[in-house]
């Protein structure tokens, strides 16, 4: 079972890549490069490989469809250019394959999908037969069946395709056709079928087999083996160069790259994180981190190596946006078609690389935005014409890298957001007052769509504007450490811009409580955690202190440092975190140490930027924001005051 699951995982992964590759070639071939043989070959190979995988997973419908698409492409290859019909066939097959991959990844294929696939396959097979009938022109080179066979065999180089239909009395004559085929030199591929359904009663001694084979051997050698049945066999010399010419650059790259499981990368990244923390602790204990004593010179190389290693490991997690983006064209086509809208979907910046967590996390919010744009933003062709716009709408998905951040933008030329209706909706939902609604500038009113609870499923249907689940989009993007902004041009379109960190740096945080509230503290900043009994604490002038390993540690209350009222506490031991602040170890009393977490730390923005003692924020799963404290700074300020 486990082996099958692994194979399926592999298929889903490779399948997506192949679908993406095929999509790319189709786009290029459709965009004026219809006669590019390298692209045709690459497209053909992708479809062929997908077919092989589908057969392996016992998906007869999908296999038949891909087989039909493969045959169509084979015809195009013979002609040396992608014919429009074959392109349509390939697009259909690739789209459905993509849908199958989604289904296999999720709840499994639905009967509707299976029916759709079968229908598409039947249509393609029918179409393929029609031109095949008049394709009897005397062509140079091997016949179609031989080429197809060589293709199926993955022949690389020269060989012989064999179609062998033994005489009905072959068994009586003492022939064993299969044994004969078996002895072919360089046998690389075998197909067998019976030429008719079994009679009743069945005569086991009448030969009804047809065998097809490819042998990578000289014609003469094949002839020698089949010399006694040569009247029953068709032989054709075929030549096919699987990957040599067209693939050279690709092959070069793939030979040098290694596929690694994502989980292993995550482990590696986690270890690199821990190494940084261990290094910090080691340096602290050894005194090497004490610049005053000249220790930093000795620690320099270690610091640098650890930092480089950490950086390299994080860079391993960078992946291009392409696989994410490539999942959208089919969906746009499907959704647009179901809504009766005509949309041109363009993408750019697929090569921009971001952390894989971002690539993985962006699919849902982007799909959401795309649905919104198609459903609510882009108008029907008739409406567009009336508004003086081209009937065909344009939806553009783009990515631009700005060093540490990446902007992903979805822009449409639809109706934009109707700010008046947003105001009205917000008012009717009690999110703003009538006076507030009137005084709110348009560009701020638009932002109301991000308010949690602004829209729920049953409220959206009457809303022509957007706002459909925008708060969910915002939350998901925020979870990735990003933010969403809007550029609304009523009547002309809407751009939704997602600004995301190119690399998500996960910070290990200890969640602590003070004054009844939860805060975060970077684990790295905490030297020790311990429990101190009230009896161990002595009052020293205005402050408190306790003794730990022969040194006196001043004790400060976190609640007081934050200007909060400390919660009541019982007579039990208190929880203390120690931090190193200004060359001194200081104990900080907290009410509770809750848990550890690892999350992207977002730097403070806007008004809070200058807020002392706060490093940044972490958005929690429940949507709450956790303030991450700079304990050392707080302690220093508190101690000094």
């Amino acid at each position, binding site marked *: 079972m486990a082996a099958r699951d692994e*194979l399926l995982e592999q298929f889903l992964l490779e399948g997506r890549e192949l679908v993406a590759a095929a999509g790319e070639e189709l786009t290029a071939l459709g965009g004026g490069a219809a006669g590019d043989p390298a692209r045709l070959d690459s497209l053909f190979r992708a479809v062929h*490989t997908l077919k*092989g*995988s589908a*057969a*392996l997973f*016992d998906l*007869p419908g999908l*296999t*038949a469809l891909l*087989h039909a698409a493969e045959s169509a492409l084979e015809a195009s290859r013979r002609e040396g250019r992608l014919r429009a019909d074959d392109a349509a066939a390939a697009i259909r097959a690739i789209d459905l394959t993509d849908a199958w991959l989604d289904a296999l990844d999720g709840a499994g294929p639905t009967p509707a999908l299976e029916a759709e696939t079968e229908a598409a396959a039947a249509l393609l097979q029918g179409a393929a037969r029609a031109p095949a009938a008049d394709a009897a022109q005397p062509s140079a080179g091997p016949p179609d069946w031989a080429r197809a066979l060589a293709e*199926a*065999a*993955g022949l690389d180089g020269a060989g012989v395709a064999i179609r062998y239909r*033994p005489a009905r009395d*072959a*068994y009586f004559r003492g*022939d*064993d*056709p*299969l*044994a004969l085929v*078996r002895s072919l030199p360089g*046998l*690389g*591929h*075998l*197909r*067998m*079928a*019976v030429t008719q*359904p*079994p009679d009743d009663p*069945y005569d*086991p*001694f009448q*030969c*009804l*087999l047809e065998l097809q084979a490819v042998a990578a051997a000289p014609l003469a050698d094949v002839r020698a083996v089949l010399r006694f049945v040569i009247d029953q066999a068709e032989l054709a010399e075929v030549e096919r160069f699987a990957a040599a010419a067209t693939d050279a650059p690709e092959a070069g790259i793939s030979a040098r790259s290694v596929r690694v499981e994502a989980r292993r990368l995550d482990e590696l990244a986690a270890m690199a994180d821990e190494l940084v923390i261990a290094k910090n602790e080691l340096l602290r204990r050894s005194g090497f981190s004490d610049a005053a004593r000249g220790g930093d010179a000795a620690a320099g190389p270690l610091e640098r190596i650890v930092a480089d290693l950490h950086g390299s490991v994080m860079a391993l997690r960078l992946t291009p946006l392409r696989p994410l983006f490539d999942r959208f064209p089919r969906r746009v086509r499907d959704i647009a078609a179901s809504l009766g809208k005509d949309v041109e979907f363009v993408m750019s910046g697929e090569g921009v690389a971001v952390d894989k967590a971002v690539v993985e996390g962006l699919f849902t919010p982007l799909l959401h935005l795309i649905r919104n744009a198609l459903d609510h933003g882009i108008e029907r062709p008739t409406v567009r014409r009336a508004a003086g716009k081209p009937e065909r709408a344009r939806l553009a998905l783009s990515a631009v890298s700005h060093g540490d951040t990446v902007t992903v933008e979805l822009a449409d030329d639809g109706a934009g957001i109707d700010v008046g209706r947003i105001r009205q909706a917000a008012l009717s939902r009690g999110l703003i007052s009538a006076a507030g609604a009137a005084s709110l500038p348009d560009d701020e009113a638009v932002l109301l769509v991000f308010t949690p609870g602004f829209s729920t499923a049953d409220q959206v249907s009457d809303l022509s504007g957007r706002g459909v689940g925008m708060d969910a989009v915002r939350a998901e993007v925020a979870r990735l450490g990003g933010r969403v902004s809007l550029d609304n041009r009523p009547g002309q379109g809407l751009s939704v811009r997602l600004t995301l960190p190119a690399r998500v740096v996960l910070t290990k945080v200890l969640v602590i409580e003070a004054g009844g509230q939860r805060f975060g503290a970077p684990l790295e900043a905490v030297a020790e955690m311990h429990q101190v009994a009230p009896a161990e604490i002595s009052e020293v002038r205005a402050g408190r202190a306790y003794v730990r390993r022969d040194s006196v540690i001043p004790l400060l209350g976190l609640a007081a440092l934050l200007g909060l009222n400390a919660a009541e506490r019982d007579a039990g031991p208190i929880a203390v975190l120690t931090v190193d602040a200004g060359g001194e170890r200081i104990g900080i009393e907290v009410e509770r140490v809750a848990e550890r977490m690892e999350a992207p730390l977002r730097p403070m923005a806007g008004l809070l930027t200058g807020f002392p003692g706060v490093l940044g924020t972490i958005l929690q799963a429940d949507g709450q924001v956790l303030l991450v404290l700079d304990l050392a700074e707080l302690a220093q300020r508190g101690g000094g005051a």
Partner: protein
Amino acid sequence: MTVRLEGDVVRLEGDCRLEEAEALAALICDHPERVVDLSMCRLMHSALVQVLLSFAPAVRGDPDDAFLRDFVTPILRRPSEGPDARDYLERQT
């Protein structure tokens, strides 16, 4: 006993020659529920392959013989269209 019925399983064992085709056909033509086990099969005459292709019973077991295992059984498992032996081989490695 190269073609042997054991419960609902038809076992092909050793060298299965032309003479066995009739016995095999008799065992499976009216019993679609029977499974044919090839794991002990060393050699199969075309006529037996033809029986299996004609009645398309469920086939199981990987024979030791590389030709039977890599070229023939994949076709018997999917009588309508045998998967590409090359893909099959790639998956194995």
